[in-house]
């Protein structure tokens, strides 16, 4: 074909237009790189001991490892569920207070920082206990020692039969290299800590994301895909388009009503990986603010909320949760398992009657605020409409996600929705939401007990302490159920529903296992990308 000047020019224009359109580089090596796009504007931290935004955990989950872990795609519900990771075997004393871990030999750290030793494990636990963002989780640890370089012994103050799930399998206790930290220095460490995982860090870019490659000296089977890019696209439309156009292979879902259906309409071949139950969405009443200091008002709101409708609106990601735990979790209640007076079934008439009894025959008005992130805002917009139906006007301001959490933590909110994924360890949630130690403080030094429960209505701390001292799982469970019933009577906080953490995935990506439950992140070491 002869190419004249005009054709040549047209071709040039078309090529440069294409080049301008593509923000992401053309995909030259199909199958080599899996790209996942998450909902945040950019990565903030890569030190497992720093409490950061949820999406950052995705890269860390690939880069770091705990001593033991549950099978891929699951939470460990009982101690037997856990599998060896950096520890090859472990045992606990009969009173569940002394835990001994036998370390895997010859595990290499990334970047040539040598072989993992017991000293590195001790160092990692020390950071979790003393400098971490989640020190309360490790407050029960009395001592960590190493009788020999291949063994680590953790001694607890109180028995904890669920120690593996509650503290060992938690990012704060992921094993990092002491030598690397000392050489790198604190500042660089925050965005480039050194671990032992199947993927190592190539580049941390605060704007676009985290770039990883398979670690050649990994102790187990090497990661199946050579490169992994954890990208950040906060804008939901842009993220969705990136998946539909094939620029990325997986994206964090938009958790708003109808989203999954609308995506399937666009591309029926898309796959959705969901954790069940996923995050627990809870409603916290600030007991120090009128009208929520009034139990009748709280009961009225409990009766006004149609939990089934909330779950249905969020289908297929939504689930029903009545108390503080989903029905099929330990200490979780189904509606008919509650005594009649603690069921708070959806009943607008009863809600209105309770409001009248509380002294608000004409309804009431209050202000609060909520994050603009879809899972928060859409849940609360549904609540707002349900409350309007019984005469309660919720003046809700929708604000930036980061500002929302900052304001919640400084006790500025009134009716607070909180969403968090918890393992099947009820005590963790009780400590966070109910205990006096976690009471929210105006100066921001408190925790996430937004209702001031335990202080405004005392009594729960004794029960929590009893649960913490339980030596058998059955005793523990019985006390946890007691706590849930007590909370049901006092209503400082109640369940709104569960919402699966969801990733929309191109059918070209095979994860290598099925995602059933777990935290809002999972490993990609077995993932492969089929070439077209």
């Amino acid at each position, binding site marked *: 074909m002869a190419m004249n000047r005009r054709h040549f020019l047209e071709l040039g224009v078309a090529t440069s237009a294409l080049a301008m359109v593509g923000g992401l580089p053309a995909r030259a090596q199909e199958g080599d790189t899996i790209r996942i796009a998450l909902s945040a504007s950019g990565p903030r931290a890569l030190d497992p001991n720093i409490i950061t935004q949820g999406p950052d955990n995705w890269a860390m989950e690939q880069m770091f490892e705990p001593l033991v872990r549950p099978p891929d795609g699951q939470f460990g519900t009982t101690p037997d569920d856990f599998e060896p990771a950096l520890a090859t075997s472990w045992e606990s004393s009969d009173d569940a207070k002394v835990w001994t871990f036998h370390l895997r030999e010859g595990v290499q750290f990334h970047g040539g920082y040598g072989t993992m030793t017991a000293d590195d494990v001790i160092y990692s636990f020390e950071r979790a206990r003393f400098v971490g963002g989640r020190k309360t989780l490790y407050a029960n640890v009395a001592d960590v020692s190493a009788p020999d370089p291949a063994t680590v012994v953790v001694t607890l103050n109180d028995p904890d039969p669920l120690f593996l799930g509650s503290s060992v399998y938690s990012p704060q206790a992921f094993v990092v290299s002491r030598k690397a930290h000392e050489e790198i220095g604190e500042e660089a460490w925050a965005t480039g800590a050194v671990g032992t995982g199947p993927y190592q860090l190539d580049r941390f870019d605060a704007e676009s994301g985290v770039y990883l490659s398979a670690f050649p000296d990994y102790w187990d089977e090497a990661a199946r895909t050579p490169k992994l890019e954890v990208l950040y696209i906060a804008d*939901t*439309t842009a993220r*969705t388009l990136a998946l539909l156009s094939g620029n990325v292979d997986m994206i964090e879902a*938009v958790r*708003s*009503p*109808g*989203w999954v*259906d*609308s*995506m399937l*309409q*666009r591309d029926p071949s898309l796959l959705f990986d969901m954790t069940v139950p996923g995050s627990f969405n809870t409603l916290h009443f600030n007991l120090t603010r009128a009208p929520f200091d009034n139990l009748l008002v709280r009961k009225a709101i409990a009766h006004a909320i149609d939990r089934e*409708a909330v779950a*249905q*609106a969020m289908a297929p990601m939504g689930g029903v949760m009545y108390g503080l735990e989903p029905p099929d979790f330990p200490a979780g209640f189904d509606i008919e398992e509650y005594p009649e007076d603690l069921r708070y079934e959806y009943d607008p008439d009863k809600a209105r009657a309770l409001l009248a009894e509380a002294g608000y025959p004409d309804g009431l008005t209050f202000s609060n605020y909520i994050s*603009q992130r*879809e899972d928060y*805002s*859409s849940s609360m*917009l*549904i609540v*707002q*409409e349900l409350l*309007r139906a019984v005469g309660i006007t919720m*003046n*809700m*301001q*929708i*604000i930036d996600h980061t500002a929302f959490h900052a304001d919640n933590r400084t006790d500025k909110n009134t009716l607070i929705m909180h969403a968090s994924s918890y393992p099947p360890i009820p005590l963790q949630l009780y400590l966070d939401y109910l205990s006096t130690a976690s009471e929210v403080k105006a100066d921001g030094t408190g925790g996430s007990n937004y209702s001031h429960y335990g202080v405004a209505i005392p009594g729960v701390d004794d029960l929590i302490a009893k649960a913490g001292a339980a030596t058998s799982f059955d005793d523990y469970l019985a006390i946890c159920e007691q706590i849930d019933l007590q909370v049901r009577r006092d209503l400082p906080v109640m369940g709104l529903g569960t919402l699966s953490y969801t990733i929309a995935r191109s059918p070209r990506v095979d994860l290598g296992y099925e995602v059933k439950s777990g935290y809002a992140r999972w490993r990609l070491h077995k993932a492969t990308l089929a070439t077209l």
Partner: protein
Amino acid sequence: MIAEETARVLPAEPSALEKVRKILFGRLDTMLATGIIVVFVLIAVLAPFLAPYDPLAQSILKINRLPSSENWLGTDQFGRDVLSRLIYGSRNSLLFGFISPVLAAIFGTLLGVIAGYFGGIIDRLISRVIDLLLAFPELLLAILIAAVLGGGFWNIIAVITVAFIPGFARVARAQTLSVKQEPYVEAAIAVGVRTPIIIVRHIIPNIMAPIVALMTLWVASAIRIEASLSFLGIGTRAPNPSWGNIIRDGLNSLFGSPWPIIGAGVAITLVVLSFNLVGDAIRDALDPSTAR
């Protein structure tokens, strides 16, 4: 063309009102624009009678429906009727569009006249503050104030008003400076008319033309700014609909139903375009400085 018309009618000394009427209905495009504005004002006023559904009522069973005989523009991600939300949304958008420029015109003119008439330290004080505010684009200023005050109807009115005041003050001051030199003002001062009377009776009526022209032009800007603020989440508060937050909500379920975005987008475009056309026409008719 306008200049020719003005030249032709000038000998008859028509009143400002007549000039406006001629401009509004004398040309096809402005007539069409006026018609569109009238229709939207009627929609806003008659919203409760026109809207087929409660704009806030959710229906979890019919999420993201496409247009049908039941819901003419479909439903949004909460199963709310899009048409009803657009109709009620026009109330917010138009109210902001009218109230803010009027308030800004009142306060801005007052400030400008005071600065221009009294001069000296008062003038310098007011002018510097105005200069300071003028340094920021209106939208940026509005976002700044809205972020501090928070959303809500009156806060947003206040925000847009403050953002518009500098423009009016500037024009009013400049006009006052020239009118102040007119013989009739000097005469009034000479015969001992009190200052407030001079300002109200002699200054303000003679500087109104450019102010009114500016006001009509800024109705469109006010609607646009309200939509932008609501889109950013700091304007009209959910669940109350305004065209801006309908677009914002619609973005989340763009692939569910594009109709909220299309509907609100068309409404904003039509109204803003119409006000701009009419505003231009009024300015051409009233403001001698732009007449060529």
